[in-house]
Each structure stands twice: as C-alpha cells, then as structure tokens.
C-alpha cells in the first residue's frame, strides 16, 4: 500500500490540455490542395484506396470522411500539389445539427455540454477506433474533466459513439442499441469506416455506412482519429466553443 501511494505521488498529475502538445512532423492530417495548377493527371483519383477523391466541375474534392490518411494521393500527384498538413480537427456536424435556427437542438447540446454520458457500439471496426476511444480515459486526456463519461447501457446514454462499417452481422445490434436510447440524443460516427462505409468497399458482409441506418449528428474523420480529434469532435458537438 505504501509503495502504491509512493508511486502515485512520484508520478504526480500528467493530465494536460488536449491540443497543446506539438504534433509530430510525420503526422498525416488533412490533405491540402495547393494553389498552383493541377496537371489533370488524375493519379490521385486512381491511387486512393477508398475512393475518397472525386472531380466535381473540374475541381478536386477530397472527402475526408472516407480518407484513411495513407498518403498515396500525395505521393502520386504529378504536379506535387497535394500534401498532408498536421491539421486533425476535421470533425463536422451533420446538416441538421449545423443548421442555424434549430434552437431546440442548440439547447439540447448546451445541456449535454454540462454532463454527457456516452455509450459505445462497435458495428464492424478493426478495433483501432475502439482503442482510441479507450485512450480518452487515460490520465493524459482524462475525458472526465469535460463532464463526459462512458456508460454501460444505452439506456443511460445521451450519445452513441459508433465505430466500424455496418456489417451484416451487427445491423440488428445497431438498431437495437439506438432504439434503447432515450431521446433526445446525439450520434457520432467515429472514423472512416463509420463515417463513409468505404474502407473495405462493398462486400457481401457489409451493409454500408452508419448514416444509412441511423441519423448521424457528428462525423469524425480519421483512420483512426487520434484521441485529440475525438475530444475536438465531442466539444464541437456540445457547443463548447470556449474549450475548442
């Protein structure tokens, strides 16, 4: 017992502001398109494993929800106009949540912002997103400091964090978990699989992305999103702009 107390006091407090630490230079974040002219080689489109890049009206559009941040497009761009920045705060609100004027939704988010209980459900992930969600509870991030907690049952939850593509074998579990939650609630699609459903393409065992089955409020790109990106997404969803 004495040794345990000694160890605890010798380490002290390690919890830190979530986004203050320097981001490693190799970190592959947002794919940024340069200002110079595109050579129209289309190598990026062909090289993307998840078909996250498309051409719309002559402009290159990168869907970060489907991006696995592998760097293939950056490597293949003949004009060298693509690069990974270290920007990782890529979470977006869905249209119905981002709409202004929905006062009720805004109020709900603000109330949740005081205390949010989250239920996780894995509906076909590779477990990387799950591990990053686990990391939110480690002493460095200590998600509890924001009034956020993970709970064991959807009946106790205000938010559902969903990881993975919707597999055939878990579609029923997704519906049942969602329906067991009290309303109003929020749904977050964590990672490229949940947000886009495109990581493994379309197979006999995959039914699609989360928003084809339950309404999604917050999308978090990443493969997997680093814990800091998840904290950003949570604060964004909870309207806590002062902390972002």
């Amino acid at each position, binding site marked *: 017992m004495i040794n345990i107390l000694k*160890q605890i006091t010798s380490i002290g407090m390690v919890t830190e502001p979530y986004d203050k630490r320097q981001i490693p230079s190799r970190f592959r974040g947002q794919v940024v398109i340069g200002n110079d002219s595109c050579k129209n080689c289309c190598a990026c489109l062909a090289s993307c494993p998840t078909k996250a890049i498309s051409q719309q009206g002559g402009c290159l559009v990168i869907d970060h929800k489907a991006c696995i941040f592998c*760097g293939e497009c950056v490597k293949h761009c003949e004009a060298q106009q693509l690069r990974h920045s270290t920007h990782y705060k890529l979470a977006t609100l869905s249209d119905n949540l981002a709409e202004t004027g929905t006062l009720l939704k805004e109020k709900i988010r603000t109330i949740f912002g005081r205390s949010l209980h989250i239920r996780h459900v894995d509906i076909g992930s*590779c*477990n990387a*997103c799950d591990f990053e969600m686990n990391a939110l509870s*480690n002493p*460095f991030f200590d998600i509890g400091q924001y009034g956020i907690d993970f709970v064991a049952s959807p009946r106790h939850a205000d938010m559902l964090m969903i990881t993975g593509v919707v597999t055939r074998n878990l579609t029923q579990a997704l519906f049942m978990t969602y329906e067991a939650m009290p309303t109003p609630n929020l749904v977050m699609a964590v990672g490229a699989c949940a947000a886009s459903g495109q990581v493994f393409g379309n*197979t006999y065992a995959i039914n699609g992305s989360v928003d084809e089955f339950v309404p999604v409020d917050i999308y978090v790109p990443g493969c997997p999103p680093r814990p800091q990106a998840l904290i950003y997404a949570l604060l964004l969803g909870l309207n806590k702009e002062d902390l972002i």
Partner: protein
Amino acid sequence: MQYQEIAAHSLVKEVKDIYNQGEYRLTAMFANDERNMKGYFAIYCIFAGAGRFKGLKAVIGQEALQFPSLTPFFPSAAWYEREIHDLFGILPVGHPDLRPLVLHENWPEGLYPMRKDFAIDMHVPMGEKPYNMLGVQGEGVFQVPVGPIHAGIIEPGHFRFSQAGEQIIHLDAKLFYTHRGIEKAVEGLSLKMAAYQAERICGACSVSHAISYAQAVESIANVEIPKEAEAIRVLVAELERLYNHVGDIGNLCAGVGLAVGISNGSRLKEILMRLNESVAGNRFLRGIVIPGGVSMDVTPELVWRIRKDLEHLASEFTEIIGLLQNNSAFLDRVESTGVLSSQACRDLGVVGVAARASGINVDMRQDYAYSIYNELHFRVPLYTSGDVAARLWVRKMEVEESIKIVKEVLEKVSSKQENLLVSIPEIKPYSSGFGWSESPRGCNFHWLMVGENNKVYRYFIRSASYPNWPAVTIAVIDNIIPDFPLINKSFELCYACLDR
C-alpha cells in the same frame, strides 16, 4: 513451396500420416475455388513443424462437393472446416458441429460468397436460419447470455455461460460479428491496394498483418527486400508488441479492479502511442510496412527519441510490475485462475502468449525466423502454469526482451538509409505463397494466390486469435463467472483479427 496433391477422400489418412511423422502440426486450412483454371475446388492444409512448412492440396471430386472431416481426429481443424462449409458450400463429412460460424442466421441457404461466381456486389436477401447456442440443461443449471454488445468499450461477441451457481460449467462463444468479408473485398485488387486492407484487418495488429501480407507478396514475387528495410520492419513490429503488452497488462488490472495498474498501464501505453505517431505518422504504425520494403526511414532524431522513451519506459515499467508482484490481493486473483493445459494447447494449435504461458515453446520469430530475427539476440520466455498470472508474466518478460531487440535493431540502422523499397515485378498468374509473423498475440499467417496482372486471386488470413479463441472457452471451465473478464483479458484476443 510444392503442395502434395491428393484426392479429397484420402485427406484423413494423409493428415494422419503427416501427424505420425511427429513434428508437423496444422497451421491453416482453407478452400480455393480453382474451377476456372483447373475445374475443381481444392482444400489446402498447411502444416508447420521443426522450422519447416509442408503443404497438402486435396482436390474435391466432381461428383460431390465434400471431403472427410479432420475434426474428429484433429480438433484444431474444427473452425477451419466450419468456415469452408459456410463460405464455399463444401461439406466436411463427419464434422460434429456444423452450425454456421462466419455467416450468421441472417444468411440465406444455398449462397456461398467466396465462390468465384458469387459477384461481390450481389444483393443478398435476409435469411432466417436457426442458430442454437450450446448449453447445459438440468436442475439448478442456468444460462447467462452476454453480448454481442458489451458494457465497456470493447468489440462485439456473444457468450453463453452455463452456470451451476457461480461456477462456469460450459461456455459457448458466437463470434464473427465484425466479419467484413475482407478476403472477398481484396479479390481483383492490385497487390498494392490490397495492402491497405490487410493493414486494417485489425488495429492492434496492424503491423503484423502488414508484414505477413508483404512477406507473402515478396515470397511469391521472389524478391528480397533491402536489409535496412527489414530492420525497420522489425523495429515497428517490436514497437507494436510493446504498446500492446504494456496496455494489456494495464487492462488485466481492470479485470481485478486495481486502479493504480489501470491508470499506469494506460499512461505508459499512451507514451508509446505518441512515440509511434512520431515514427510512422500514425499511432497504430500504419503506412510504414508496404510490399517491397518500407515507406519511411528512421532519422537520427527518431533513433534518439526511441532510445530515450524506451529507457524511460523500462524503469517505470519495472516499478509498476513491482507493485503487482508484491501485492498478495492481486496475486490471489491471478494465480491458478483460468488454467489452460498444455494438452489443450497442443490439441487446438494454440499460439503466442497463451501457448508460451502453458509450456509450449512456440514463437515464429525463433522457430521460423523471418526478416532479420535470426541475427538478433532475444529469449522466448516460457511458463508452465497456464494461468492468468503466467500469461501476465510472459508479457512482462516479452516487454523486456522487446526493448532489448529494439536497442539492437537501432544499432543496425545507419544514419543514412537509401533504397528502402524494391518494386514488385510481374508475377506469373496463379502463383501462390504465404507469409507469417509473430504478432503480439501469436502467429499471423497469410496465404495469397496472385491472379492475372498482379491482382489478388485468393487471400486467406489466419490470425493468432483464430486458434486461440476456442481455448478461452476451455480455460474458463470451473472458474467463477466474475473471473471471466479477467481470464478473457489475459488472453486479450482480437475479435476483428478473427472475424476479418
């Protein structure tokens, strides 16, 4: 490798002959649809023993899609055969348990997705097959269903406990909930594109899967990758083992409610994850191992950083382990809990930490040394008690060994690394080969057949969790149900690795 080609009806006899030679044991078994080339389905059996591999190819006759089941004689074949039955519709005659394994009750009868004539985008209606969970009936015996969605942040799986009071008398596990059909998804993809899916079979084993896949490609293409690329692969593989083992030891403390162990384990794991992010730009070390070599070098600054972080880790780790070793309340929970016998290990072909904790000396890095492991100096820790404690102490010693390996590897990488990648040449269509690696959980075995234009024809993934899951259901017998989370965490198997 040459496969000994046999007719399917003599499969049992041939496998018995191989087992009677003494050293070879079944490592993987899968089917392949070769109707467009040869006009038949084939069952491949891969055996490993004494540092060598042996392959058997059983050709299924035209008259009936069936083969004699190996399961009554070799229990390790049970899941492989159920999977072949599910995905190819080939019947293992005499199999004692042909319930669906991979495709659940929602799958309609008569559709076999891994056959070549099953289009990948085919719409499959919902089916309603019966699925009976196995349990024990009788007076005073009750059943406890758990999952597939669990209370914590963990992967999905359904467990059915048969209980007499607190004591578990039987456990049946229904898994494959996160089955994504990756083996089908990569068919027709270029070898390079498929690598991204191979890396995403499992998060916690990303590097091992990437290495197994890359080695399979390289062995078929008959290319040798630069020595320095091998060194970097070993480096990231050991970094993966480190963060897994350190995190798993912390998680194991969660199984007994020892808060100081949980927070220290997750703290040290976070330090390692941040190191990973500096090395590979991704916290799960994704994107560094690719077919033909590695995509990134290790700069002198990184070498310095890795050395510094691991030195720090080593001293802190020793201190935390000291807290566990001298804690009688903790030892009381982990010792003699969840014992897995060495006989069960041998019967089921158990691999990795679980096998080494039960006295089975297997480690792919030592027995089938790949990459540059034969030039490195490390011990393979061995325990014989087979309980939760043994699996914990094996991990503890492997952490120490991995730190040593990393230090040794860092000596081998020069300050200026060039040519870390060789290109994969055009491969003769329908060549096959395999790759393997020792993941934090055991042997990851990948078999690959390349089709025309360097595209994947058939890919079979046998992760370490595959042979180890059935062992969990055996290790829990006679334990009390509140110890199940602890026993389960001591194996720390991936669901995603198994389900794929």
